[in-house]
């Protein structure tokens, strides 16, 4: 059906040798510009790149030396730190958002508007701007007087307050039909059971969205870990890249190898969960 494939430019419909050639050139150009640098990174991490001019997309002599040297410089430790932060950070973020979403979507209570507005307002509050005062809070948590500076926990707990995930969960949970909940209630199911066995299992698509977005967001964190980690033992892998680069004994090839390890997790998550990703992009940005 031609109506279904109709696009703004109508490129797919254009046939003929000239049009095909033009299309090939355009798409090859696109691929080169956006994927080319990443390809150079991939190739470079498996080649001896002793100075920046040797970066190339053409493999020469494959080697694992870059990774070996990177591991000698503690990259495995930084990678584990990153996984620790993303693992517990995401767990906390999802748990908090799911619970809050349930209350906001399925309950009516006084002050609900205020709570919702307060949470949504933080979306306009870029975390970079809060970073400095946040470190003061982390150095001496009000009431409990814990000092989380220099610990991975200090990078993890602030991740729990993430309005985007709460918004996505709330919106999604609103669409679960009341009848399901009421039927369960008549059968004597308690609050936790309704939440855990009725509502939550129906929210898998939304869980996918906040999981994928949460992962890439946490993995990309820079300023907060930089401020919290007071020495390199608490560094996450993205932070360690700069330390590696500054080290005069380390070649760009080693930085590329570490970079490859730093980008693989979020790229793989994107490739495996592309559908959740696309859904989140449109739900997060296009509403309103």
């Amino acid at each position, binding site marked *: 059906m031609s109506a279904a494939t109709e*696009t703004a430019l109508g490129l797919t419909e254009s046939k003929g040798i000239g049009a095909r050639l033009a299309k090939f050139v355009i*798409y090859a150009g696109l*691929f080169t510009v956006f994927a080319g640098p990443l390809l150079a990174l991939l190739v470079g991490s498996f080649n001896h790149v002793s100075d920046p001019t040797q970066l190339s997309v053409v493999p020469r002599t494959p080697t694992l030396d870059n990774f070996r040297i990177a591991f000698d410089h503690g990259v495995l430790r930084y990678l584990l730190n990153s996984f620790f932060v993303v693992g517990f950070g995401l767990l906390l973020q999802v748990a908090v958002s799911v619970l809050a979403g*349930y209350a906001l979507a399925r309950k009516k209570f006084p002050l609900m508007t205020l709570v919702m507005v307060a949470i949504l307002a933080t979306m306009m509050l870029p975390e970079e701007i809060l970073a400095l005062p946040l470190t*003061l809070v982390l150095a001496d948590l009000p009431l409990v007087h814990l000092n989380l500076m220099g610990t991975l926990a200090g990078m993890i707990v602030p991740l729990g307050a993430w309005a985007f995930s709460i918004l996505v969960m709330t919106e999604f949970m609103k669409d679960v039909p009341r009848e399901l909940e009421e039927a369960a209630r008549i059968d004597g199911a308690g609050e936790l059971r309704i939440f855990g066995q009725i509502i939550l299992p129906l929210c898998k698509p939304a869980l996918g969205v906040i999981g994928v977005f949460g992962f890439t967001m946490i993995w990309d964190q820079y300023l907060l870990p930089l401020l919290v980690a007071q020495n390199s033992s608490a560094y996450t892998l993205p932070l360690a890249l700069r330390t590696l680069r500054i080290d005069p004994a380390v070649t760009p090839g080693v930085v590329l190898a570490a970079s490859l390890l730093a980008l693989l997790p979020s790229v793989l998550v994107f490739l495996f969960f592309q559908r959740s990703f696309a859904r989140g992009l449109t739900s997060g940005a296009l509403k309103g």
Partner: protein
Amino acid sequence: MSVREATRLTAPAQVAPAAADRPRQKRRDGQWWVPWLFLAPALVLFVYFKFIPMAQAIGMSVQEVRPYLGNTWVGGANYAEVLGSDGFRSAAWNTIVLAVGQTFGSMLLGFCLALLVEGQTRKLTFIRSAAFLPVVVPLAVVAELWRIMYHPTGDGLINQVIGLVGLGPSGFINDPHTSLASIAVTGIWRGAPYDMMIFLAGLAGIDRGLYEAATVDGASTRQRILHVTLPGLRPVFAILFVLAAVRGFRTFTEVFLLTNGGPNGSTEVVMTLIYKLGLEQSRLGVGSAGAVLLFGATLVLTVCVQLLRRRRAA
């Protein structure tokens, strides 16, 4: 986005349940504290890590912060110092230039990309995924990679490429004349595919019938884009503008890693300046005043775009 969202979300709550429904309503919703129990973790974390830091930033901005000695009230002195310093003013200017360049560059390129890769074929899906990759690569990796590609001698990767068309060699991030533009290009490389995806979602929402009607009426491709596609994408442009501008204002990581404000302060932005004031010079009061001003700018921009959109919609 969020204000509108909030009113929409909470609208049902404002509809009071009919009196006769009350008893059933109560039983259905359980005890009054149940929702608060579910909300408790979120409320604690938001208070601790969003609201207290915000209050603290505002508080510190009117004080001279002296660790262990106690703070002293200085009123607007920190703001006066920030606004009066050449360093901050040039950083604010750089931030605006960078934000504007990245925002419009990403939107323009993203729009063109979206038009080029719109469609259902498998080849296009592949190209789309490949083009989107930069968005999911951590910013720290993007910066380190571009640092190597921007190598300032003739045999640096990008210098070799532009050398093919007879340009360069350029110093890129090492040259005060090109450093800010180079950072913007890196930002556009990562921002354009994101905008592309949002535009694609917007394109998918355009009524196919309009295209058909335009074709029947003998409209050229250019006319079709101008009169059907662009008007249909208007809300998308507004949203992307806000998102990208806010992203631009808070830029830190790529500047910190690519140039750290250099050479010669040519790429110093507000966030790198705040970082230096706060961390390296322990001038938390002045740094906070800068942060509050940056937040104010973000807020004003968001509200202005919201108001403009409202008026146009009304």
